[in-house]
């Protein structure tokens, strides 16, 4: 992208028009006249009439929140979700701690341990939503696509520090096995061109 298109300020080819603004009143008399004119012209009723007209037309554009919600774009960064693997339903999070490290508002903490199968297990994971600035770094850095930003943006809380815990964020296991878990196309997800960008490693098998 070059800078030229920004330097090209060719206004004339478009349909611009100047707004017709009358001169501001200067003297006291002029100001008085304007007040009288506006008061008795009934501009208030013009507005009321528009509302009344639209009410009878039944063509209302207002979204009836919270009964009605607008769809959220895939790249919107709301409250985090923890994904599971397809079919097996195993938790994707391996407890690498990169999200904890990269978090610029220092709101992620996790506890890990070695489990019975000698694997690293995440025993608890918490995000302090009072501190989180929803920057999306955690989702971007996650090597396993485990932590993603979901569409749940309603995080009003009675207290400043509001924590969300691992099990709140984790996809229910039945949902994952039933393959109902939505794959995340948003922040940090694999792009369609990933194969072209990866160098291949020779294999001796």
């Amino acid at each position, binding site marked *: 992208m070059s800078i030229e298109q920004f330097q090209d300020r060719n206004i004339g080819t478009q349909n611009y028009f100047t707004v017709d603004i009358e001169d501001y009143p200067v003297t006291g008399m002029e100001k008085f006249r304007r007040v009288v004119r506006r008061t008795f012209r009934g501009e208030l009723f013009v507005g009321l009439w528009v509302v009344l007209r639209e009410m009878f037309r039944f063509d209302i554009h207002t979204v009836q929140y919270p009964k009605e919600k607008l769809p959220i774009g895939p790249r919107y960064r709301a409250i985090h979700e923890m994904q599971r693997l397809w079919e097996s339903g195993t938790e994707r999070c391996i*407890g*690498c701690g990169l999200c904890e490290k990269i978090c610029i508002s220092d709101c992620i903490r996790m506890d*890990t*341990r*070695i489990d019975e199968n000698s694997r*690293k297990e995440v025993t608890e*994971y918490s995000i302090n939503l009072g501190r989180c600035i929803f920057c999306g770094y955690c989702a971007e850095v996650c090597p396993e696509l485990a932590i993603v930003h979901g569409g749940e943006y309603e995080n009003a809380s009675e207290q400043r520090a509001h924590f969300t815990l691992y099990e709140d964020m984790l996809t229910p296991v039945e949902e994952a096995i039933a393959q109902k878990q939505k794959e995340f196309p948003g922040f940090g997800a694999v792009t369609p061109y990933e194969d072209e960008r990866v160098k291949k490693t*020779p*294999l*001796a098998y």
Partner: protein
Amino acid sequence: MSMITITIDGQKIETQEGEFLLNAARANGIFIPAICYLTRCSPTLACRICLVEADGKQVYACNAKAKEGMEIVTSTDNIEQERRSIMEVYDVNHPLQCGVCDQSGECELQNYTLELGVDSQSYAIKDVERAAIDWGHIHYDPGLCIVCERCVTVCKDMIGDTSLKTVPRGSDPLDATYKESMPKDAYAMWNKLNKSVIGLTSGEAMLDCTSCGECAAVCPVGALVDTEFMYKSNAWELTQIPATCGHCSAGCQISYDVKHESIENSSDKIYRVMNEWNYVSLCGAGRYGFDYENRGVTKDKDAFVKAIEAFKQADTIRFTSTITNEEAFILQRLKEERGYRLINPEAKSFQNFLQEYSTISGTALYGSDLKETHDANFVISVGTALKSDNPNARYAFNNSMKMNKGAGLYFHPIADQVIEGLGKNVMSINHAPLQEEAVLYLILDLFADKAKLPEAIGKYLEQFHSKKTVTITETVKEEIIESVTKIIVDEESGEEKEVTEEIKKMVAKKIDKEVEVQSNALLEMVGAPENFNEALAKFLKKANAFSLIVGPDCYTHPNAKNIARLCALIEKYSDFKLVMIPTLTNTLGVSLLCDLDDEAGSYSIGYNTSGDFTLSALGNGDLDMPALNQQEGTLTSINKRVNPTNAALDYAGYELNDIANALGLESELTVDYTERLPVERGFRSENFDALPNHYTNEGVEVRGYLLDNRGVKTDNNEHVDEIDTDLTLEEGSIIYLVNPVRQFTAFTNTTEQLHTDGGLYMSETYLNENDINEGDTVTVSTSLGELRVNVISDNKIDGAIACLPTFDSKINSEALFGGYRFTSASIKKV
């Protein structure tokens, strides 16, 4: 060795002649990549990444020695290619599990892969199955292992256990085309790497070593990790708190790695202990015994009021030497202000020993330190169970054997397989208890400059010498000529021919010979083996740097004063440099700071020991005190260094300073006393916060400050008593007061990883001979008391001496001993 000038990448630097190029470069801030090299150990030449060009020839910086005028280039096109290929080889089949690997974030494979910009892989080989193994306290994952052999090297050259070695990997040979296509060194390195993984020398399933964990510390990747630490925390989450280990007198530099305990509990917890492994090696107690803090203490006002009352009532303070210099100074100040008697038998005996020593040496402190032992090539250890009393002294002993091709004599009544296993150049001489005097006389006899030695001593030593004729069997090689008849088939005609040939042969022949030899009665007294003289002659061939380690057995010996004088004489009249092992963590500091008393009064305060009113950091006293990992302060080490240590964990209770303040001393913080430590006793007036605690790239120890080894007036009396031959232990079994490896005090025993039940440690032969089994309960009784303990079999000792530990507070073992660490006892099976 002289200073020379070499040029690295155009930069002129000064270094010692014969210094390895890598060390010279590091000391001057020049970076040469290297993975397998460990400072203070021999070059392994496994990684070959430290390639440099010296005077136009490619050499390995870790084993090429500096010569005057050398021109070194650290990077050429060829070297860059080699390095890149080497890193690619290291990445072949290395699992991409950095996400869960404990080393991630401090991994040298990660670092060098990035440093050298490895972004693609050109090599491949079929992997073999390499399953992870648990070796007890160490977990080994061969999949992650890059076989740099640092663990093998440190275990052999520094620790001396030689528990690890390389074992065959069992993989396919490398693809033949690589030999042509790959850079030469990278191929050679891969060829070697591809044949080996790390295994145990013993061939058994579990590690049976002194469990220091140094192998896991030096591992550049996550192949060797501490089993307990595994998957607990990422490296970058831990805050490193520089400190000094509080378990023994070595005063090792460590860092406590601290993080919040969990999501629920945000109070700090120590996760592990790290060390600068290039310059300091830890023992198992230092590495795994870190959680000895006094937990959950709050300010208990009632107990504090009672403590003040007790202090007002008391006339005696009993304490141990596991306290900081500042606390010892507070106790001394309290003594001066309020006339308390300070009772600390172990420090008192060391203090007496040092004082007696100074009357001849003319210095307040012994002349040497463990650094000089590391650099020596002939080391003698007397009166100490080296592996338990001060593991670092043992590392120094071993390191001097391995690195300087040195030799050593280990005089101790207990045959110790760990010491004997250090190498062929170590002779372990198991003299009878109480014979330490004879040992020191022997050293005087063998090494002192007889011409300078006081006449009386020279004459006394002369008495032990006599000539005697012995018959020895010598093996002589003789040349004989044999005639052999052979049947040869003529190849052309097929005829058989008889041919007689004469063959010259060398035949070994044994001849009995009568030889007149010098016999030394001292050798018999100390129970030296028959080949002592020949072995010693061999040991001494190249010896030119001598070190003598003297240990706690000598301080509590009934003739300790005489032994101290003998030590001073050896230091004065021979080439030996003397280092004494202070009994406990800060015994040296306490013995310098406190005027200790012999006799206790009627009402005593106990600090970390029992008294009528007990202050305890172990959590079992009348008033809680902070443990050494919860306090800041300084500790005096065996190297005569005053090392600072910081508080790793919070402590909310009262400390000794609060009591001192309530009794009239005024100081806001305990560390305010650091700059008030008495200069006339060798300390320096330095602010605690100004004390450094690190090593430089050159390996220079920048920690705290060195004590001033000030001069003491001598009376020019160099008289020493003759060996007290009447001194013997009573009939019966002999017991020895010593802790097993990894235990020092009750503090080490409170830690999660080291906690164990003590008992009577007996060698396997002793158990078999007396029909006692491991786990049996026995009563041990001496003239001073009786104990019931369980028997523990110790496969690392030999002989008929049983060992009682002091670390287990359930066993009041010290009550059985009258000062000296050996005593006779009767051991009966219950």
